[in-house]
């Protein structure tokens, strides 16, 4: 566990999603410090359908094709000065699955993986009991959403918390101040979730990659009457917005000053050129983020958003809408 320190004395870092060896060098050259991804071994895919989770991704394009390729990616990242975080972040593993997850964790230690991204307290216990010496980062699926929760997971060996998406800037700053002993990582681009992902049971298995949270929900009162307007607008906003085009760039200064200095780009399975574009733009903005404030900063972020996603940003796909109000 690190000791409390000024967030400004540590360089801000970027995590980028990766699912193929060929993506490693372009993403590191674009400015990523960490890469994260996973793989479904054959013995898993032969046994279970995609919705039985090893690592929270249910479509093949989000995974490395083989452990050999993943190992090569880990080694290449290390040679290039980057680090790799392996996703083992299913909310639980049945006993018959646990040994495979534990084997993967041990394998990760052997090949030089920099961290395991985990969510199941049972797996955390087993990793520690097995003496597997790889740092554990708490997945957003693990819900380290308040100080005693973070302390609980730190007691299980977690050294970094990936902040749940539903926390606002004030809550994030409060959490970091209350438990400064761990690192914090925040989502910054792509993939906003309308629900509390750590407890959501919507299955992500549609062939068109359109999940139940993105369905065209019609909301009405218990007897068919109109729902309250605020609720209708809430769901309309979700329906009319592509949650994949999510962004928290405007909040970079607030997050940095609040003690968060690791930023995550979502999108395992996205095209490489899109990932590289995201990382490049983020790295460029981060260079000025510590001094960023006021309308000029916001304007720059909005322009960056438009260049990344091809349309203006909106409150529905804003990670931290309060950043605009501040």
């Amino acid at each position, binding site marked *: 566990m690190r000791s409390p320190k000024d967030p400004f004395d540590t360089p801000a870092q970027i995590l980028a999603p990766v699912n193929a060896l060929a993506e490693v060098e372009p993403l590191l050259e674009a400015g990523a410090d960490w890469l994260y991804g996973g793989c479904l071994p054959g013995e898993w895919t032969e046994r279970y359908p995609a919705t039985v989770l090893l690592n929270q991704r249910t479509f093949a394009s989000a995974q490395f094709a083989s452990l050999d390729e993943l190992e090569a990616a880990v080694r290449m990242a290390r040679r290039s000065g980057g680090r790799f975080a392996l996703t083992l972040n299913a909310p639980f593993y049945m006993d018959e699955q646990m040994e495979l997850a534990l084997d993967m964790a041990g394998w990760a230690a052997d090949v030089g993986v920099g961290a395991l991204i985990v969510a199941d307290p049972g797996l955390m216990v087993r990793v520690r009991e097995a003496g597997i010496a790889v740092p554990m980062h708490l997945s957003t699926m693990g819900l380290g959403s308040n100080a005693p929760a*973070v302390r609980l997971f730190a007691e299980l060996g977690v050294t970094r918390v990936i902040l749940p998406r539903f926390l606002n800037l004030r809550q994030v700053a409060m959490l970091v101040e209350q438990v400064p002993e761990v690192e914090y990582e925040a989502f910054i681009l792509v993939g906003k979730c309308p629900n509390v992902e750590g407890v959501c049971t919507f299955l992500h298995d549609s062939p068109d990659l359109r999940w139940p949270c993105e369905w065209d929900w019609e909301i*009405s009162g218990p007897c068919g009457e109109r729902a309250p307007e605020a609720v209708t607008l809430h769901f309309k906003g979700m329906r009319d917005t592509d949650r994949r085009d999510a962004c928290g760039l405007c909040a970079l200064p607030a997050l940095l000053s609040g003690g968060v200095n690791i930023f995550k780009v979502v999108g395992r399975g996205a095209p490489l050129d899109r990932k590289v574009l995201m990382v490049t733009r983020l790295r460029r903005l981060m260079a000025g983020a510590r001094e960023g404030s006021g309308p000029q900063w916001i304007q720059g972020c909005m322009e960056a958003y438009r260049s990344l996603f091809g349309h203006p940003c909106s409150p529905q796909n804003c990670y931290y809408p309060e950043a605009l109000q501040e």
Partner: protein
Amino acid sequence: MRERYFTVGPGAEASGDSHGFRVGSETCARLLPGPGRLSSLAASGDPAGLTLVTPLAGPDEVDRVLEAISQARSEGWGEVVVNDWGILREVSARPGADITAGRLLLRLRRGPGSLDDWDGLDGASRRYFAWGPLYDRPFLDFLGRQGVARLELDPPRHWLPVPSPDGFRLSMHCDTRLISVLASCPWLPEDSEGQGAEPRNCEKPCTEGGPLAMRAAALEHPLRLCGRAILERVRLPVGEEDLPDRVDRLIYDPFP
């Protein structure tokens, strides 16, 4: 005979033919009963038959949840249902009412999504979707070390016999399946006076008029939106005689 516990809405009386009553919320700290309500419920009958259901908590909500738990325990409430890891850590460190792991801690996989190919799944995958976390022994041992003695379940989309994990009693929700929780409250505006407002000042607009219906083309029946909770109305698909003895408590969450 199995115990029957009924969920009591805000302001409603905890009375009737029941072994116990439940108040609180799995998903929102704003819906926790205040000190006066907790005391009046305890004074209205046997507090040992009362359950305080506690929610997920953000960093600024922990104290409020713990205050409610502390009061309930001091007034003799019989059970605290915990749905947040941080609350669990704090509650387990102090003696008091029985600790139950709520549905949000268990993270049963309930859908919707395509679970249509049930017939094509092998036994392991079926167990995963029906009662998966109950087969995660290291996880259950972890809960046990935190002082958890009871687990709350709800019916899976496709029924399988309920396993009986050693060391735990089981409660079964008979009316609802918990599907998801909205990241923000749709009743409140996205500004500092809304989502970020002091919970005690919330006028609880979500509790007026009953749960809303969430309809989608892919679903035969609507889901229900109760505050931030997305629920599915269900009926226990088997008779009580088909439940193991370890399921010794049935929970009813009657919608208005």
